[in-house]
């Protein structure tokens, strides 16, 4: 009974937030002091364009674990497609080292959600 309710709430959250994974747990210290290891984040993925400063959760092709970092560069093309660069607040360099081989930017389809709180 408990498991079923939890599942219903989880699926409900997926529906409402429009995100595959509506709640995530912070795994690393790369966003400190804002987010610490173990912090829980609520995600939301709207159709709004991605803008600098937003904290997004993304998956790198071929990697299992999603990463929660801030968008520091946005290049939006005429057709609406967007190239995005991210960086952990507490990291010295941007995330290009984390992206797949030869990948310079993230696109919208890499991004699972925005952290809202």
């Amino acid at each position: 009974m408990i498991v079923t309710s939890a599942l219903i709430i989880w699926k409900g959250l997926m529906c409402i937030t429009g995100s595959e994974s509506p709640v995530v747990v912070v795994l690393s210290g790369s966003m400190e002091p804002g987010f610490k290891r173990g912090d829980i984040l609520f995600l939301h993925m709207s159709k709004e364009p991605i803008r600098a400063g937003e904290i997004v959760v993304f998956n790198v092709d071929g990697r299992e674990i999603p990463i929660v970092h801030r968008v520091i560069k946005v290049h939006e093309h005429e057709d609406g497609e967007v190239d995005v660069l991210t960086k952990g607040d507490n990291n010295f360099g941007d995330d290009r080292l984390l992206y797949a081989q030869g990948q310079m930017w993230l696109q919208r389809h890499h991004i699972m959600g925005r952290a809202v709180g």
Partner: protein
Amino acid sequence: MCAIASISDNFSSPSPTSQVQVLNINWFRNKPDGDDEVSMTMNISADLQSLFTWNTKQVFVFLAAEYETPQNSLNQVSLWDGIIPAKEHAKFYIHTTNKYRFVDQGSNLRGRDFNLTLHWHVMPKTGKMFADKIVMTGFYLPQSYR
């Protein structure tokens, strides 16, 4: 508790201020990979003290150059950022070159005018994050590389 915190945050009406001056274009070139890059020195001053409430954990602030090019309808390039952990540090004046490289996708920066926008993201101890910005217009890059 999250909800109560967020609701109480809605009652505060912050009034931050900011000013940025571009003191010097240090260099401006087209890189071997074809993209333009520019380095500049700026004075950035701001007073964000009014953003802090009992529920504020930190404020993340960054300055982005924002401009349009023929191939991209919007470009936002973060030039500098900082974390303000407490109200006492929220009124500041810094003299700095751009922390992050100002690189275009292409070679569209000559003579380009751009805005410098100071963005802030308030991270609460608990509850919803909120963000806002001040747009400062009137900046432009030189017509030729140097």
